[in-house]
């Protein structure tokens, strides 16, 4: 079962785990990314190109499903305004084999950072707000997967 969503609503990790697990056995690897409150950040705003992010997430999910033997795959990304501690992204990958689940999860989170059309704006407690510049580190990590 592949489940992919871009949503403005809060990500309910417990509910997603339940949905994802339905009937599945074996190994599940997950990644949860949360908003960090570094440097006095008070809001993270994520903007996306809906048509392109939807296509990007779908392509990514299918690339993982082609590459590894997966029983279930969940890819949820939040957009809009978030506060520190909020979950931005959730990846769940299940497989009969732990190495497949772990590799798929890592692949998906690395690729999400570069393949999905998202822009981040950070607002700090002193009122300063700025759009985040693209980071080279993410591009390097994603390239490892060839």
């Amino acid at each position: 079962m592949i489940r992919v969503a871009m949503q403005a609503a809060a990500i309910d990790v417990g509910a997603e785990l339940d949905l994802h697990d339905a009937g599945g056995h074996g190994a599940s690897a997950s990644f949860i990314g949360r908003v960090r409150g570094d440097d006095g950040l008070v809001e993270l705003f994520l903007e996306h190109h809906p048509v392109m992010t939807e296509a990007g997430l779908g392509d990514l999910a299918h690339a993982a499903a082609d590459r590894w033997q997966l029983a279930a795959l969940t890819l949820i990304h939040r957009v809009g305004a978030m506060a520190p501690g909020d979950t931005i992204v959730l990846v769940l990958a299940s497989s009969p084999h732990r190495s497949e689940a772990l590799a798929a999860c890592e692949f998906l989170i690395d690729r999400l950072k570069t393949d999905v059309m998202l822009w981040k704006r950070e607002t700090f407690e002193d009122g300063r707000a700025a759009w985040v510049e693209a980071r080279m580190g993410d591009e390097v990590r994603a390239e490892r997967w060839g």
Partner: protein
Amino acid sequence: MALNISYFAWVRERMGTADEVVDLPVGITDLTALLSWLAARDARGALAFAEPQRIRAAIDGVMMGPGAPLAGAREVALFPPVTGG
């Protein structure tokens, strides 16, 4: 030629709108020409497109390089490099 243009992130903020429909003058046939035309059109365009090398573009949902032709395009999206998930 009528063209839908959408803007994202700081390009959207500088343009003051998320999208518009423009009537392209004859001769504006590729992305590079489009950016030059928008930069020359008004103060907002000048601010948003002063550094065209910082702009990325997609035509009908597909990423395109600066020389991509506009013929047949329904929507052009203009935005900064993405900052990931």
